[in-house]
C-alpha cells in the first residue's frame, strides 16, 4: 500500500488528512501535521502507510495524529499518536515501542557560555567519564533485587531518598517522575536481569547527553520561570528504560501473538499486536510498562545526578556557581490513560505516543504550580550539531493531537546510507571546528547520527508552532555532545 500526495486532503497549510475512505479497514482518519516539504519527506518512506495501519486497529477514537518529525519505524511510525477508548479499546505494546519511556530531560545552568569556554573540553571529558555510555557499558549504581522492585514502583522518587534528586526535580518531571500502578511482578526475570546493571547509563544509538548554550529566547517570562537564561548553559539527556524496557516489550509482543487470536483481533502488521485494554493480558502489560517507565525516570534522574557531579567537578571552585536546575523531563514512548474531548464528547482514552511527547496547555493539574499558567514544557532535541528547542504545549492542541507534540528532528537518511556516505572521524573534526566538543565511543555510530541524516528541526518546530500545537520558548545551540 503506497500512499501518494493525491490520496491526502489538505485542511490548511500545516494539516493534511487521509480519510477513512482511503482504505476499507481504517476505523479513524489519519491527520498529518506537516508543511509541504516535510510531507514530501514523509511520502518518501513507509511512515504514512504505517499511520494507516495504525488507523485500522480496533477501538480507536478521534484520529491518528502524525507529527512533522515522522519517519518510518516498525508497526507505529515514529512520531505517531493514537487513542483507544478505555475500557472498550485496546492497548498495544508494539505501538509504544521497545524503549518504553524513552525521553528527554533538560537542566539549566546559570553559568555563562563566555565564562565556560576555557572549561568546555574538560567538561565534555568529565561528563563522558561520569555518565556511562555506549554498547554494553554497565551502570554505576548497582541494585539489589528489592531496590530494583522499589525503582519499578517509585520511579524517580527512589532517587530522592538516595540523595540523587531534589524535590524540584520530581515536580518538574512528567507524572512527577512516577506512574502509579506499576507492578514489577508483571515484568519477567529476564527483563530485570537485562536492566539490573544498567541504571544510570545512556546506552547507544541516538541517545546522548549534550551541553548547550541558550542561544535565543522567544518567551522571556516562560524562560525565566523555567530557569533558562540567554547566553547560559543547559544540559539535555536523552535515554530510556534500557534493556529492562526492551525485554518487557519483547516479552509482551511475543505473548500477545496468542492474545490477538484468542480475542479475534485482525492486525494489519504483527508488530501492532494488542489486547483488549481491560483483559488480563492488557492490564498485565500496562503494569509492566509502567514499571519500565518508572525505571526510565529513575535512569534519567541518575544521569542528571552524574551531570551535576560533573559540573561540580569542573566549575565547583568558582564562586557563586549554582547547581543545575531541572527544566523538565518528558517521555516520548508511552501509553497513558487520559481524558480528552473527542468529537464533542469527554472520553477516557489510552493515548499511545511513539516518538511523540505529551504537550498539554495551561491549567493542566499535572504540572508544578509555576508551570500551570504556562502549559507543559515540550523538549525537542535536534540532531547532533544542530539546534534544539524548548516549547510549551497549548490548550488548543488538546483537540488537535490529544495534546501531543513532535519529539525531535526525525530521520530522513537510513543508518546504512549514513555509514556509507559519512565518516565518523571527519564528522567529529568538522563539528569540533564548529565549536562542538564530541566524545563518542564509536565512529560508525557517530556517522549514523550525523546531522545530514535528520530533517531540519527548526522546520519541524515551525510546523508545530504554526499548527497551534506548541509555542516557542527558547532555542539551544550544542557545544558538547557525549554519545555511546
Amino acid at each position: 500500500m503506497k500512499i501518494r500526495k493525491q490520496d491526502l486532503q489538505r485542511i490548511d497549510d500545516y494539516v493534511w488528512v487521509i480519510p477513512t475512505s482511503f482504505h476499507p479497514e481504517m476505523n479513524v482518519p489519519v491527520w498529518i501535521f506537516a508543511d509541504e516539504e516535510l510531507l514530501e519527506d514523509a511520502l518518501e518512506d513507509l511512515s504514512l502507510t504505517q499511520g494507516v495501519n495504525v488507523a485500522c486497529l480496533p477501538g480507536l477514537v478521534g484520529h491518528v495524529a502524525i507529527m512533522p518529525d515522522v519517519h518510518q519505524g516498525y508497526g507505529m511510525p515514529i512520531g505517531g499518536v493514537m487513542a483507544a477508548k478505555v475500557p472498550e479499546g485496546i492497548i498495544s505494546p508494539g505501538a509504544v515501542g521497545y524503549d518504553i519511556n524513552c525521553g528527554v530531560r533538560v537542566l539549566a545552568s546559570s553559568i555563562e557560555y563566555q565564562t565556560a569556554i576555557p572549561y568546555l573540553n574538560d567538561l565534555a571529558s568529565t561528563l563522558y567519564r561520569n555518565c556511562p555510555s555506549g554498547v554494553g557499558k554497565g551502570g554505576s549504581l548497582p541494585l539489589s533485587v528489592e531496590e530494583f522492585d522499589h525503582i519499578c514502583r517509585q520511579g524517580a522518587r527512589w532517587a530522592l531518598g538516595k540523595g540523587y534528586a531534589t524535590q524540584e526535580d520530581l515536580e518538574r518531571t512528567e507524572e512527577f517522575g512516577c506512574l502509579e500502578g506499576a507492578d514489577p511482578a508483571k515484568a519477567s526475570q529476564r527483563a530485570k536481569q537485562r536492566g539490573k546493571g544498567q541504571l544510570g547509563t545512556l546506552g547507544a544509538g541516538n541517545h546522548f547527553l549534550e551541553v548547550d548554550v541558550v542561544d535565543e529566547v522567544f518567551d522571556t517570562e516562560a524562560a525565566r520561570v523555567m530557569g533558562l537564561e540567554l547566553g547560559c548553559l543547559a544540559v539535555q539527556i536523552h535515554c530510556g528504560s534500557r534493556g529492562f524496557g526492551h525485554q518487557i516489550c519483547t516479552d509482551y509482543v511475543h505473548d500477545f501473538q496468542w492474545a490477538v487470536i484468542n480475542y479475534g483481533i485482525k492486525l494489519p502488521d504483527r508488530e501492532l499486536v494488542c489486547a483488549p485494554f481491560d483483559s488480563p493480558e492488557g492490564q498485565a502489560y500496562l503494569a509492566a510498562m509502567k514499571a519500565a517507565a518508572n525505571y526510565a525516570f529513575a535512569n534519567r534522574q541518575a544521569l542528571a545526578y552524574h551531570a551535576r557531579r560533573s559540573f561540580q567537578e569542573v566549575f565547583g571552585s568558582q564562586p557563586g556557581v549554582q547547581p543545575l536546575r531541572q527544566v523538565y523531563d518528558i517521555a516520548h514512548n508511552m501509553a497513558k490513560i487520559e481524558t480528552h474531548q473527542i468529537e464533542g464528547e469527554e472520553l477516557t482514552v489510552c493515548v499511545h505516543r511513539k516518538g511523540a511527547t505529551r504537550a498539554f496547555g495551561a491549567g493542566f493539574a499535572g504540572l508544578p504550580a509555576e508551570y500551570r499558567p504556562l502549559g507543559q514544557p515540550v523538549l525537542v532535541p535536534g540532531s547532533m550539531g544542530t539546534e534544539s528547542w524548548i516549547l510549551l504545549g497549548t490548550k488548543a492542541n488538546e483537540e488537535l493531537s490529544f495534546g501531543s507534540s513532535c519529539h525531535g528532528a526525525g530521520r530522513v537518511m537510513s543508518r546504512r546510507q549514513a555509514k556509507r556516505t559519512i565518516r565518523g572521524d571527519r564528522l567529529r573534526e568538522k563539528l569540533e571546528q564548529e565549536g562542538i566538543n564530541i566524545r563518542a565511543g564509536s565512529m560508525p555510530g557517530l556517522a549514523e547520527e550525523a546531522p545530514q541524516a535528520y530533517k531540519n528541526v527548526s522546520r519541524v518546530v515551525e510546523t508545530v508552532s504554526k499548527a497551534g500545537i506548541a509555542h516557542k520558548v527558547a532555542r539551544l545551540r550544542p557545544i558538547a555532545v557525549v554519545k555511546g
Partner: protein
Amino acid sequence: MILKDTNFKIIPSSESAQAKSFEEIEHTADWAYRVRGENLAQLLIQATLGLYSLVGMQLTPGSQTTRSIQLKGIDRESLLVAWLNELLYFHESEGLGFEQIKIQYLDETSIEAKVTGAPTQQWLKDIKAVTYHNLAICETESGLEVTLVLDV
C-alpha cells in the same frame, strides 16, 4: 518435525567460507536485513549469522560455554523472532555469543537447541529487539526468505 539433532557452525565474518545468505537493506531509522534459507533450520541459522555479522560480533578465544534454549512460537515467524531475541538476551545478560548451534528438535512452533560459544570480545551495536514488523516467511524457488527489522 522438521529437524532433529543437527549441528551448525556460525562464523560471523566477511571472510567466512560459509555461504552468505543475508543482506542488509535500507530502513530509515532502524536496521533491516533479508535472509534466505533452504528450509526453516537454514533460515534460522542464516538469520543468526546475519545478526551476529551486523553487530560485528567476535568471541573471546579460550574456554567455551554451552547453554540450552527451548522456545515456542505461535508459528514459524514468531519462533524465528523469539530465537533471535533469545540470542540478544544472552548477549545483554551474560555477554555471550555463540558459534555452534546443535538443533535437537525443530518444528514450526518449537525449538530445542544447545548453543556453544564464549564471552563476546566485540559487539559494536546495541540492538533493542528483533521486531515483527511486516514479518512473513515467504516460500521461494530456492526455499524460504524473510525480511527482519531490528530496533536499534
